[in-house]
């Protein structure tokens, strides 16, 4: 063993402390949090994720929900579903939280998409990671072509970021279409799964980059529909969820065949997944 390489003793598993500067419960299960690192800079890109850490409870991965174009910390949205996320829901402005990151090498194609149309396909909480790229595009609007955002949510009560979505719907320089899987007396918009919205924006598909994020079941159906419109596989970007326990390519839990979701992803190009049957 070589003794000459004296790597720094930096501990890749050690969280850095951050302060919660704002929280907002967005619906029954989704909580918005804004975080600021206590020490040093925090440079991230759309697609990066962090491991959030509550001492005594544990760590879990969350994709950053905000765009680096918006200064002053970063945002996450946490669904109350496990031990760590329940503990995070108990935090308030001023609370401390451990953060490791930004993590991930497979990121959204913010540069490659410039000059092209961008079609965002979002399902439920899949809006959260997509929002980082959406806001990046909106903050650099002139650098991208036509922009469309398709949003599907299971039911009326699970909608979140309503004000922001209403703002997108009112913009005349993007197309925003929303649908609910199941109708509701309070809902006057479209009803049906998110794939039914793709036909309405088919004209921009010819030159579009298509980032997709949603629950595991959604990807297959979105891909089948995009296939009908002959969208090239190298322009479809899938933001995948896996158990990214360590986040640094060691622990093995997030492996998708030979890929590591945490290192090769979490955003992966569909054309790179031809020989990766576990991906979808």
């Amino acid at each position, binding site marked *: 063993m070589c003794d000459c390489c004296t*790597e720094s*003793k930096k501990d890749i598993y*050690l969280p850095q402390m951050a302060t919660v500067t704002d929280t907002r419960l967005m619906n029954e299960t989704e909580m918005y949090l804004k975080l600021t690192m206590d020490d040093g800079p925090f440079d991230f890109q759309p697609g990066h994720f962090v491991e959030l850490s509550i*001492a005594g409870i544990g760590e879990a991965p969350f994709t950053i929900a905000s765009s680096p174009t918006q200064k002053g910390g970063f945002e996450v949205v946490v669904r109350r579903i496990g031990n760590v*996320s329940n503990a995070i829901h108990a935090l308030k402005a001023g609370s401390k939280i451990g953060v490791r990151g930004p993590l991930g090498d497979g990121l959204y194609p913010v540069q490659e998409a410039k000059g092209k149309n961008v079609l965002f396909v979002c399902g439920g909480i899949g809006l959260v990671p997509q929002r980082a790229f959406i806001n990046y595009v909106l903050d650099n609007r002139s650098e991208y072509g036509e922009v469309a955002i398709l949003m599907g949510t299971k039911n009326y009560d699970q909608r979140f970021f309503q004000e922001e979505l209403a703002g997108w719907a009112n913009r005349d320089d993007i197309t925003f279409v929303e649908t609910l899987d199941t109708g509701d007396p309070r809902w006057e918009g479209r009803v049906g799964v998110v794939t039914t919205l793709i036909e309405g924006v088919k004209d921009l598909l010819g030159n579009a980059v298509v980032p997709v994020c949603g629950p595991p079941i959604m990807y297959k159906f979105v891909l089948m529909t995009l296939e009908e419109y002959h969208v090239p596989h190298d322009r479809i970007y899938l933001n995948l969820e896996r158990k990214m326990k360590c986040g640094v390519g*060691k622990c093995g839990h*997030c492996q998708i*065949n030979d890929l590591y979701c945490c290192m090769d992803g979490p955003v992966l190009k569909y054309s790179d997944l031809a020989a990766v049957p576990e991906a979808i």
Partner: protein
Amino acid sequence: MTVKKLAKNDFDSFIDAIIQSKKVYGPQVKGEKYDFAQLNAAQDLCMDYDVSLLPPTKYFLPVRETLMTFEVGGGYTSQQDEEPFVLVGVHPYDLVAINQMDILFSQDNYDSHYMTRRKHATIVACDVVTPSANVFASSMGTAVVKEGADVLVTDIGDGYLLEAMTDKGAILLASATRATEADASDMQKRQAVRDVNQKSLNKHELKCDSAYLPKLLSQAYDHSVWEEMAETCFACGSCNVVCPTCYCFDVKDDVNWDMASGKRERCVDGCLLDGFTKVAGDHEFRKVQAHRFRHRLFRKAKYVPAKIGGQIACVGCGRCVSACLPNIANPVTIYNKLLDDLGMS
């Protein structure tokens, strides 16, 4: 570097002297089997053991270790194990596994916990004297080694030959004051031991060069062998736990009795276990047992090799074969069946 010779009782004195100044771990009797444990005296050391229950990689990636301590609601303090130790009696196949782990834990993201232990270790490897019931190191090209340890010991019958392979090893050997220079006949005896081991550590014979395995597996993803073999799999993870190249882990928090402080621990995990890929919300990505069974074999001979320059991440120790109750874990059986069905191309 020169090769030295020690009479067997002088070797014991040499080990006893090291025990006085450092922690020393080596293979010892455990019931009817052997396992690595801390040595109190050289007489407990079994240099002629067949195979240890757990691989010596456990001294670098322990079954359970503290990564950091924390204050509830406060900061985290990294814990690094910097105590020097000597690991004696590592068989060549296990040494190859340790060297593979060295690459995996130092590349991309440097794992200071593993690497700190590794840097503070001196490894004394030894050529195999007694082949174990299921060893197939000869098939995997790991029956003998020329590098990777600090000292390499070979039992040549009337004594041990000791070769320092690194400066660290040379420093250790310098304390073997009763050692003599090995002569030509000693070296011939050592070569004879290795020539035999090169071929005879082979209770299960792989019908191809191990370098062909990644290519073989690339044609075998949808083969029926995975379903057939996994039919009787208990998903117990024994094959994972005893494997010297399995390094998947889980991380858990443990709060102390004072409810104000605690530790974050890393512990062994296994890809065969149900729930290994389960995320919050109960979605499990590799739910089918046969798929988990396949994943282990693919990691050994395709996925991990791609990360470590083509080396096959099965070293032929045979521990999984011995540990598996339904007797389905033998990689050679599976690879040979695939070779029979798919041929070489």
